[in-house]
């Protein structure tokens, strides 16, 4: 009996060690206690309630006890340092912001879709970028909602009011951000259906155990008819890669700055030489890029969403492609009865496609 008890204890210790080992290779940053909320990035091509979104984010954070940099100080900082790009943070701006204002993180919201036609639609990605070291995405979440996502019996749960839908999206995103700031853990309960897996994929990713790998996500080359689709896909990849815990995702502001300084022009996609250059400058182990072939939304009650993209991940050490995939889904895929499971928002569908791809990347080659 004592022998069995000792074996049980040994087993328990081994399990505890395994769990400890598992958590050790997960990227975790200290939660910032003081943040700045940057102006909203509008990728939708139409007018969006940017001020309202920024105000709600600021108020919710302040109400939870987080110190938020006031507008006057932020404006003065932007003017003083001639900050022209507010949709991301580069290393120099992050260091200055931290030094001069004491801010430890920057909250950036990007709106990818906005339509007030009934049923209304909104798609947003919000991320928190650390300013205490190299600008890194420490938390990110997204919401792609449509008023007819869940109409319910006799359409009683339809949302026809645009403001109400925006409020719902912000509730969800603020709740997720505040959870992270309170616990240090990003929400992992992301809905993803198997039908959104990449249709074709090559997986040669071998991640070193116990090491957090840095990754730079470049803007996707956009072949689709949708404006800014490349930026939206890149944001979704940053959002999901940061939540896997296996990667430290360098913020798009720093990536953009280095691409401009190195005068890298990607005509049609990333070359190995460019990936090597960008990876070396940014000290990134991996460089992820891709092409968007379709990113279609529709306005009104009837239509079909479509998202199609390909992704390539280049490892800097070997200068080789270690992941390559092609994803292609329509909103009506797998829908059989009464439109159940239909995707009414391209971002709502694309986020599941990206989630499944990033999980496969993080799990590596089996």
């Amino acid at each position, binding site marked *: 009996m004592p022998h069995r008890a000792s074996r049980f204890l040994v087993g328990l210790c081994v399990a505890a060690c395994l769990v400890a080992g598992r958590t050790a290779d997960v990227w975790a940053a200290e939660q910032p206690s003081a943040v700045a909320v940057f102006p909203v990035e509008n990728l939708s091509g139409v007018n969006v309630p940017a001020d309202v979104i920024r105000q709600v984010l600021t108020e919710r954070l302040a109400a939870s006890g987080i110190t938020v940099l006031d507008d006057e100080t932020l404006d003065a900082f932007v003017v003083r340092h001639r900050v022209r790009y507010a949709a991301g943070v580069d290393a120099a701006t992050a260091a200055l912001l931290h030094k001069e204002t004491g801010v430890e993180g920057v909250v950036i919201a990007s709106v990818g879709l906005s339509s007030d036609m009934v049923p209304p639609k909104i798609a947003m990605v919000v991320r928190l970028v650390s300013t205490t070291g190299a600008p890194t995405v420490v938390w990110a979440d997204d919401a792609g909602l449509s008023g007819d996502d869940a109409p319910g019996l006799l359409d009683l749960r339809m949302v026809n009011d645009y403001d109400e839908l925006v409020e719902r999206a912000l509730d969800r995103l603020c709740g997720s951000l505040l959870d992270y700031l309170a616990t240090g853990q990003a929400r992992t309960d992301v809905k993803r259906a198997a039908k959104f897996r990449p249709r074709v994929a*090559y997986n040669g990713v071998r991640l070193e155990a116990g090491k957090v790998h840095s990754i730079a996500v470049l803007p996707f080359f956009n072949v689709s008819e949708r404006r800014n689709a490349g930026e939206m896909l890149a944001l979704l990849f940053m959002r999901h890669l940061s939540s896997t815990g296996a990667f430290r995702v360098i913020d798009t502001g720093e990536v953009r700055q280095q691409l401009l300084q190195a005068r890298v022009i990607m005509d049609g996609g990333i070359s*190995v030489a460019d990936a090597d250059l960008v990876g070396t400058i940014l000290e990134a182990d991996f460089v992820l890029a891709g*092409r968007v072939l379709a990113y279609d939304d529709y306005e009104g009650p009837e239509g079909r969403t479509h998202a199609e993209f390909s992704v390539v991940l280049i490892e800097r050490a070997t200068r080789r*492609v270690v992941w390559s995939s092609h994803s292609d889904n329509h909103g009506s895929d797998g829908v059989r009865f009464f439109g159940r499971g239909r995707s009414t928002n391209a971002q709502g569908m694309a986020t599941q496609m990206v989630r499944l791809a990033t999980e496969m990347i993080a799990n590596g080659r089996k």
Partner: protein
Amino acid sequence: MKTVLAPVTWALGLVVCAASMSAAQVSDVYRDPRMDFGTIQTVAVLPFANLTREQVAADRVRDVFINKLLSTEAVYVLPVGEVGRGVAKTEIAAPTAPPAEDVVKLGAFLKVDAVITGVVREYGEVRSGNSAANVISISIQLIETGTGRVVWSGSSTRGGISFWDRLLGGGGQPLNAVTEQAVDALFDKLLGPPAK
């Protein structure tokens, strides 16, 4: 006399039929018998020529083709950006149909054993009466970069309106599924045993 001639007539008829059928059997695959395909380790897939009305048909098919080829793990495929860089640096005027000397030049620059060119001939919906279905037709050439010689060539057509589509209606399969089938069929021809 009539009873003796009847079997002979039948036998002659069968021989004529068999001969005409074997003469009509034309393969859509060319494989250079002198080529050792095991030496091809790295390839570059050049932009495909697009003969369809769909603007991004060639890009779509090329993306699926590259990913499928990489996932077979038979060869390593360079990223499209690297191929684009090679085409720009070597100043190839017609990357969809390069002459042999350009292929040799590109191969030396990119350090690849072969390049693949392709043509998308049909891509999209076809209609016949009340029926409609997606169809794709592609052809591929594998060109060895040492000499600029075509060592393999094949084509594939998938989708279209089937007997059951005409009888029962229905819109056939989605375009992405048809594309994957066409590319798979090409790989069966390329990576499979040579046709007898």
